[in-house]
């Protein structure tokens, strides 16, 4: 199985908010619930506009570089308010929530996160018009060769 096939990119419209491609594990109910809790009363998060960049194969889950980019003019009338990241199988699903303002100029953030095991990572953006967009990626996490213990 090539690494590319491990990358899950949700496509489709509102009805497929948590839709999955063929032969892919669905996002866990706990993750769906955590995301919905954050998204609030807005319609289910839609796929698109958000791009989560993360290596599909990670050598060590202790520090995984990620970046999130959202298409947005970042004007007072149309900007990203918040970017949130969730994981599926970490002991705690929340990872980080970024708060943005038009003065950022671009809705682009980067950080390094921890991944306890191979799992889905989801990035979401809440826009000034209240809409919520998302991108989920399936990540393989390996371990160091020699476990020191």
């Amino acid at each position: 199985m090539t690494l590319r096939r491990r990358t899950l990119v949700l496509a489709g419209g509102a009805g497929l908010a948590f839709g999955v491609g063929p032969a892919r594990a669905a996002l866990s109910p706990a993750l769906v619930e955590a995301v919905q809790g954050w998204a609030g009363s807005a319609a289910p998060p839609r796929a698109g506009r958000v791009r989560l960049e993360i290596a599909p194969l990670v050598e060590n889950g202790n520090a995984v570089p990620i970046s999130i980019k959202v298409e947005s003019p970042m004007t007072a009338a149309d900007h990203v308010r918040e970017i949130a990241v969730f994981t599926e199988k970490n002991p705690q699903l929340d990872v980080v929530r970024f708060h943005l303002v038009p003065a950022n100029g671009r809705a682009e953030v980067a950080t390094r996160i921890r991944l306890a095991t191979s799992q889905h990572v989801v990035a979401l953006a809440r826009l000034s018009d209240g809409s919520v967009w998302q991108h989920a990626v399936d990540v393989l996490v390996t371990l160091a060769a020699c476990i020191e213990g």
Partner: protein
Amino acid sequence: MATAVRALIHVPRQVRRGDVVEIRATIAHVMETGHRPDSEGSRVPRDIVTRFECQLDGTPVFAADVYPAVAANPYFAFALRAERSGTLVLTWEGDRGFRHRETTALEVT
């Protein structure tokens, strides 16, 4: 451990008015998750940075609510449209009363 908190801030030089620049900030912090067992099997208590903020001349321009899944020595990068020169103040808060503040200049020509 060394007593001073270490932080690394990167603000680009030679910024022109209207440029969108990337600010990068790293702070030394163990980010103990609270899930790890120590050598005797008991849980090491949580000790993490919980909030990072950046203000430009007193106006908030970026903030992050931080959870244990952010890696040790947390790193954040974000964008900023440069309108005029000013003072950037970056602050971190966390468990056990952790607080740190860095001040640096944004020079815009």
